[in-house]
Structure formats: structure tokens, C-alpha cells
């Protein structure tokens, strides 16, 4: 099973392979820069572990674990 963004721990990084999902959310995720071949890193997690802070392209994005699970990472 490929790793998803949701599987990463704070400090861990990866490269996006495929962005799942559909509709407005899917488009928004892409627009915000989470595209294939993008390097991402996890910044911190909210106290209850959700949502996550994703570091990409020089800025911070909040993303829920459920949505992060749609983003599949490349094999390292």
C-alpha cells in the first residue's frame, strides 16, 4: 500500500505522486500547489492529531487527515 500524506509524522517529508478526490475540494488542493512531483513536509499536528499542517512551496497549509489520505506519495 502506497503511503499517503496522512501517514507522515511531523518533520517527515515526501513527494506527491497522485492527488485523489474530486470536485471543488480536489481543484482547490491542486490550486494551492499540491500537485504531482511537489515536495511536501509535515509541520505540526493539532493537539488531537487532526488537522495537519503541511509545508509546501514555502508556505503552510492546514489539511484534515481525511483529505490528506487522498494524496498519495511516491515511493521513497
Amino acid at each position: 500500500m502506497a503511503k499517503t500524506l496522512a501517514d507522515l509524522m511531523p518533520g517527515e517529508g515526501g513527494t506527491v505522486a497522485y492527488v485523489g478526490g474530486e470536485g471543488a475540494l480536489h481543484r482547490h488542493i491542486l490550486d494551492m500547489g499540491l500537485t504531482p512531483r511537489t515536495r511536501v513536509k509535515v509541520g505540526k499536528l493539532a493537539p488531537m492529531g487532526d488537522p495537519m499542517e503541511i509545508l509546501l512551496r514555502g508556505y503552510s497549509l492546514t489539511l484534515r487527515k481525511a483529505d490528506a489520505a487522498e494524496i498519495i506519495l511516491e515511493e521513497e
Partner: protein
Amino acid sequence: MQYVFALAGNQNSGKTTLFNRLTGSNQHVGNWPGVTVEQKTGTLLHHHHGKSAHVGPPMLRRNREAEENNDVQLVDLPGIYSLSPYTMEEVVSRDFITLQKPNAVINIVDATNLERNLYLTLQLAELETPLVVALNMMDEVNKQGDAIDVNSLSEALGVPVVPICARNGDGLDELVRQSMMAAEKHILPGKLDICSGDTHEALHAIIHLIEDKARAKGLSPRYAGTKLLEGDEKIERLLELDEGTLHIIGEIIARLEKQAGMERAAIMADARYTFLDGVIKKCVVKAQNAPESPSARIDRVLMHRALAFPIFLLMMLLVFFITFGPFGTWIADGFAALIKQGISLIDRGLTAANTAPWVQALLVDGVLAGVGAVLEFLPTIVLLFLLLSILEDSGYMARAAFLMDKPMRKLGLNGRSFIPMIMGFGCTVPAVMGARSMQSQRDRRFTIMLTPFMSCGAKVPIYALFTRAFFPEQGVLVMCCLYLGGMLMAVISASVLKKTVFHGDAAPFIMELPAYRLPTLANVGRQLWDKAKDFLQRAFTIILAATVVVWFLQTYTFRLTLADTMEESMLGVIGGFIAPVFRPLGFGSVSAATAVITGVIAKESVVSTLAVLSGTEVGSSQMMAALHGIFPSNLAAASFLTFVLLYMPCVAAFAAMRREMQGRGIALASVCCQTALAWLTALLVYQIGGLFVF
């Protein structure tokens, strides 16, 4: 000739600061027609449009006035990240540029965040409208140790790029100059080839197909073609393409998707970001060994997994302590004393001028007493707003939303709902407006329903007054109880609403976490000034009117003779009908009932009405005594406060709710339920509290 410029850019890019700087105080806030998206327009300052050309003898005044209007209107578009068809903000923005055809678009770009900001720029450049990029936050770029080659960036993008620092006002003259020039000479952005290979071919094939249709609709073929590739249904419909064309496009896309290994939306996004990667590499030099950003360092403490919640609680408590604790009350008392002085001065003046007695009564016991009672709380409200504004502008509120997302989701809401609710502590109306940032109708309505539970600033005078009269030692405690109580009721209502009216889940939560920024004095000052001005206007219009009405109803009987007793007056009769409803709650007097009713007009009226009805001066000991008369026990006061906390919000809030929820029925239902809930809760407080001897 009057020019229109549009200002576009990401959220958190300093757009508001820039807009304020460019337009000064002449702004007008309204609505984009048909949608609940806020629209700000203003007149551009510092431009020399139309003034440069004239040479020769001075023109006669008459001639000069005959010259056309040389104003430049600046329209602030909503903060957006892209031009997709999915959100109202994006649609409103792109429609404005493509259909209203402004003379130029100023695109503010956060230089510390180039890639994502330029993603929008690339799309704006497709719209065949003069475009100027304002590269903001250059000071922070320098601080980080990075360097941006503005000239090569400009060349790479095909548009003029002007470095600015909106906070300090640097570069603004140049920005205006470049924008004017671009508009006057109608300089269009250079055509960029963003895509390569298969995508390039496919895109051009599509453009070729729809060129004529696009031109016929006044759209740039490049824009239309790109959008069609992305699967933009709005553009598809707008172009009215025939079956054949649609089919061919479908084929082109299907083939491209297979070649690229991605689906259509991803293809364009990927192409743009890949292009931008190249541009950045050419034009930006990043600092070696960049130190951890200040924001990250701050977050390590503030957002620490264990500390985050306690720190947040502390922040909120601090806000309350400053506003309602010793410092806040000291300021409030000082201001109240000033007002009292003013009123007695006027009173003596009127007596000296031999004013007709009924007029004097109207002015002093009516208007001045009422308005004065409300005015007294200006400093408190301003202080509260100041603190909340600072928290928001600094970027902390975004983190609060991040923290609160999971708990909010348990209630069926979104972390995003958190910010409007916090604003509700200031005033329900902008909080209800703030709910526009919610992605879905359901979320919006749900959030709006809950905002009235966040005790608004107008209720503060009521709490403060009663605290002073009945619970002088436990001021802060009472405030905390009230505010927390409100929140508790919100939580309870939310759980109920979630299971009944608002099934399903909240919209997804994706949000940029902006860097921490020191709020600029100018921005905060402006917000405060707006709020203070708003408050004063309310005081001297609605509150004044309400006060006059109350005074009138109290002084005269239905036969328009002078009333000798309270019961005889019109007010007494009306109040007499309503008062019994409140008897089980412990405050079944005419005065209390009337105060509650006037509170529907504006919450501050509760205080002004009580002042007028008891015929006493604001903040005087007589008023305190009168209050004790109206509310026989501390428990009755507590019950009254509970009722005031929870019952329907003022008409202004109701009107806002009705408009934002887009349904008179649901707003009305919500308001009725609130009042019923208020009644029940106050009942419980009074009856159960009565069991424990207070």
C-alpha cells in the same frame, strides 16, 4: 475619463493594507450584486490622471470643471487563489474582469510566497486586461536573506512588476504610475507559453476550435481554452458550444489525460506550477541555510501539542481581563464621569435658558439619559474590539481555527466557523457576514444560527450595569459565567441542531496558515475608528429614537394627556400586557418588560430604557437604587441577565441573518427558538436558584 482598476490577490497578501493605502478614507463597502460577497470600492489617491497634459495659460475655472471626471475607482476583489468556477469569490472576480473590463488589474503578490501567488497571476494574465504585479512584503524577503531579480521576473511573466511594501507605503507611487500607464496605453500582458509538449498541443487545438465563439462572447480565447481544458462547466455553458465541438474537445482531453497520466484539472495546475518552478529558479536566490522563520519559532511554543489549548484559553481570558477587569473598568468609569458632567452642564444650561419644561424633560430625562447610558460603554467596546482585531491581524486567529477544527467538527461545524464566532463577541452583524467564508450553505447557516450565542458587544453595557448594581465584588466572575454560559448553550444547541436540522458533515477544512505579522497601527486604527464611528452613529440615531419613543410612551396616556402614574401611561399599558410573561422569571415589572422589548431594537437600549424609566441619571446611585426596585433580588437580576444573554438578537442582526441565510423562515424560526430557550433557561435559573437561598 473615469477609470476603473481592480485589485486582486491571495488572502493574507496585504491586499487590505494596500487597498487602504491606495484609497485612504474614501471607501465604500457594499455587496457584489446577487451574491453574499463583500465588495469594497474606493477612489484612488495620488494619481495624476488627466493632469499631466495641459500646457499653456491657466484654464478658466469654468473650463476646468467642464473637463471630464478624472477619478480612478479601485475595486477590491475578494481574496482568491485561483480562477476556478467553484467558489463565489472566484466567479465574482473573474466575471468582473472579463465582463466589466476594468482598465487595469493590480495583482498584489506576497513575495515571501511567490509560487502560490504567481499561480493566480498566470491566470489573470490570460484575461487580456492590462496587468501590473505589486510585489509586496519585499522587506520580509530581505530579512529572510532572499533576493528577487525583479527585472527578470517581469520579463519572465510578461507584465510590469513593482516591488512595494504596503505597510510602509514604499513603492506605491511607482505602482500607481505603472498602473496608470498600463491603463492609458492599454498594455496587455505578454503571451506566455506555460505548457509544453502534449499539453501545449492539446490546449492550442482547443483554443483554435473555440476562438470565434469566445471572441463573440467578449472572452479571451486563451482564457476560455484553458478553462475548457480544466473542465470549467461555466465557461462551457457560456460559450454555447455545439455537440460536435464538445465531442472533439472531449476526445482531445481524454487523449491528453492518458498521455499525462493525470486528470484534466491536475494537468493545468501541474503545467502552471512547473512553469513557475522555472521562473523562480531564474529570478529568485534563496538564502543559504535559511534560519527557521520567526513564525515557526513562535508556533513551536504557541502551537505546542500540549500547550496550545491552555495558551489559547489564557489568551481569551487575558482579553476579557483587560476589557472587564480593573484596567477596563477604570477607563470606563472615567469616561462615564465625563459624560455625567456633560449632561449636568447641559441641564443647567437649559434651565438657565428658560426651556419649556416638557422639552427639558424630553432632552435631559429622555435623550441625554438614554443616549448617555449607552455612550458610557464606548471605551469598553472599543477596547474589546481592539484586542480581537490585534489577535486576528496578527495571524493568531487562523491558528485558533486550526486548533479548534477537531472540536468544532464534533459539533458538526468547521474550524473556519470559529473565526466568525469569535467576531460575534464584538458584534453579531459582522460575525454573520463573516460566515460568508464558509464553503457550503449548510455550514454558513449553521454558523450563523450559533453566532447570537456569542454575547455581542452591545450587551456589555447591560452586564456592566447590572454587575455594578448587584454584584460589585464579583465583576469578572459574572462576566466569565455569562460568556461561558453563552458558549455552553451554543455547544448544546449545536449538538441538537446537528442531529436535526443540519445533518451531514461540515465542508472540508483547507486554509493557509499565514505568517505571524505585527498588526499595523494604521490597519488596526482604521478598524477601531470604523467601529467607534459605527457605535456613535447607532447611539445618536437608533438609540436616540428609541429613547424618545420610550419617553413619549412613558409620559403620555393613550389619550395624549399627561400620565400621572406609570400604569396610566401608554408604556404602562403595553408593558402591563407583556410583563406577566416574565413574572415566573423574577422580573415581571413593566420596566423590565419594556427594557427587554426595546432591546430588540438595539441591545444597548435595555440600559437606556431602564435609565429613562427610572428617571435617574446614568451611573448614579439613584439608578442603582431604582434597579434594585425593579429587580427585587440578586437572583432576579441574574435571571434577567440570563434572559438577555440568550434571547433574540437585535433587528440589525436579524436582518443580517435573514439576508445571509437567504430565507426569512429559517431566520425567524431561529430567533423564536432563541427567545424560547432564553425564557426557559432564565426560568430555570430563577426557580432552581431560588431553592438555594441566595
